[in-house]
């Protein structure tokens, strides 16, 4: 029983990072009906932004510390938000009126470009991510180990998810996002600047990817330029599983994939981990082709 609970905790911590990446995928898809394959690479850039920022921040304020971590997190998110907007401006906007497939192939190109540019500038060898979060005593409850990093991941994921919900449902730009998602032409006729809204969506999604990158690197402090490929793929699966276009769906999908993979690794064999995760995806899509929460118009930002 203790072992099972421990595996659940492991799965939740892993799944909540996937959820954070999945939200970025699903948000861009909700607005543009387009899978941004470079999302996993923005995740990687977020981690590297943290890697290069940490020593600079350490010169200004004590690190490791919670305040320092928040500053690193904030600046990395801002940097990646700008970068996400820039990628949209340079690579995707010129293709806005072209077939969806053109944009999709471009996204794969952007992804490969970032990965190999990363290898050129950062080096291909794995780097140690600095300890930016204070090491707390690991809480132990009756043989269970609850790692403070895992708690932080859960907490930050939850806060960001709620913040996102607020932006989408309660703010003016959120309303505009939902309008563009519903019908871009009609939204434009109503005076919504669709270009701005789309850029903002990319920036927001990229900021979330950067946050996920930092959280990932805090938990697994070995980062390299290709680190975004696998989590990106899994998060994409999570987004589809939860119903692509649905924010709570992406979060739920991330958790389901994370827990499934952990339980399979722990109880069956890690060799079948990915196979079983994808089998779960196929089963769910057979029963609900639009994903778990992917109902029409619900929460589609």
């Amino acid at each position: 029983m203790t072992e099972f609970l421990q595996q659940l905790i492991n799965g939740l911590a892993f799944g909540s990072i996937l959820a954070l990446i999945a939200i970025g995928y699903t948000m861009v898809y909700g607005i543009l009906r387009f899978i941004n394959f470079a999302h996993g690479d923005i995740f990687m850039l977020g981690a590297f932004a943290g890697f290069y920022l940490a020593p600079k921040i350490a010169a200004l304020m004590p690190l490791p510390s919670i305040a320092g971590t928040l500053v690193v997190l904030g600046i990395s998110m801002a940097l990646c938000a700008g970068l996400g907007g820039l990628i949209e401006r340079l690579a995707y906007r010129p293709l806005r009126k072209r077939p969806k497939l053109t944009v999709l192939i471009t996204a794969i190109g952007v992804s490969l470009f970032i990965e190999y540019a990363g290898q050129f500038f950062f080096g291909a060898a794995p780097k140690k991510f600095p300890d930016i979060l204070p090491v707390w005593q690991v809480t132990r409850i009756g043989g269970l180990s609850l790692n403070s990093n895992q708690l932080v991941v859960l907490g930050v994921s939850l806060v960001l998810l709620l913040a996102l919900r607020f932006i989408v449902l309660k703010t003016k730009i959120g309303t505009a996002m939902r309008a563009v998602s519903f019908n871009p032409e009609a939204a434009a006729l109503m005076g919504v600047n669709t270009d701005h809204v789309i850029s903002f969506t990319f920036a927001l999604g990229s900021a979330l990817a950067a946050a996920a990158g930092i959280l990932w690197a805090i938990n697994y402090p070995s980062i390299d330029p290709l680190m975004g490929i696998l989590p990106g793929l899994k998060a994409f699966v999570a987004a589809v599983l939860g119903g692509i276009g649905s924010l709570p769906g992406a979060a739920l999908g991330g958790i389901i994939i994370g827990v499934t993979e952990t339980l399979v690794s722990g109880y069956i064999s890690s060799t079948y981990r990915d196979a079983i995760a994808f089998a779960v995806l196929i089963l769910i899509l057979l029963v609900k082709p639009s994903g778990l929460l992917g109902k029409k118009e619900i929460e589609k930002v």
Partner: protein
Amino acid sequence: MKTWPEQFLAAAAAMLVLTGCNKPAAGPDASADIIKVGEFASLTGSEATFGQSSHHGTQLAVDQLNAAGGVLGKKIQLLTEDNQSQAGQSATVVRKLISSDGVVAILGEVASSRSLEAAPICQQNKVPMISPSSTNPKVTETGDCIFRVCFIDPFQGTVMANFAGKRLQLKNVAILTDVKSDYSVGLTKFFKEGFLAAGGKIAVEQNYSGGDKDFNAQLTAIKAANPDGLFVPGYYTEVGLIALQAKQLNLAFPMFGGDGWESSSLVPIGGAALEGDYFSTHFSPQDTTPAVQAFAKDFLAKFHEPSDAMAALGYDSLMLLADAIKRAGTTEGTKVREALAATKDFHGATGNITIDPARNASKPAVILTITNGGFKYIETVAP
């Protein structure tokens, strides 16, 4: 470790050298005063620190030989190709080295899976190949042209099984294997045989795939099996993270593994979580044998970083080849092959090497421990 721009410049320079010598190679006697040796290595990618170390060792051997007048009066020219630590690349670059560059022998690789890609190609072309540090037995089983200067997994697995049973007094050991790596699977097999034969028990076996970052699931299952030690025959990239997560899950028993652990990147990632863990390897600069000390000193002087096992093996691979070419009196493939096969008691930087009938090196292993963020020499185990 070189930074990327430097590597890029080096690669560009290597390309210039290649194009520079391709032209005279067309003439009949222009290549008469050089001996071309091909090397394929993981200079970039996930096992880059291994590839770089090994390459530096080989480079040092080339420089020393050329400074002493070369081999058979000819200078040695090392042509190095990077396989980016990726599957599939080694076959391509080795084909290129053999067919378009016309090398007399091939040196490489660190990882067994990538040596296994190149070995059939060398065998088909009857070009002798020496692997510096691939320890999986299958590598030299490919054919009679394939050699190695390191010991093999059965020996290393047995050494660690004995060490775990006798020195660490472990009775019930868990194993965590990288199922994507021939090296790791092989080491697990031979460790298990040795440990079971000596009366030990295997508490649980768990797997991961090279490239994974999260090992909490496997480690939780291992913890539940309550072993008194954990054998992790993986590579440093994952071992550091495994140690960290084991510490966070409060696994309070020692971890130990093979030569895949030895890298300057291991401790920066694993940190204090690795203290008191053990691994077997080929070489320790703390070994006081004169040949080891001479190599360690020269390496430090040239590259301004301490030498490690991969560097020493890279060095030995070229020195062994040069020795065989000298004894053969020619660079012709079959003659060099025979001379290599007849190698006996060659004094290398990694100990005295004798090539056995299966073309493996019979030589000692050393066991190191991790203390205060560094590697400490414990003992040498003879074959």
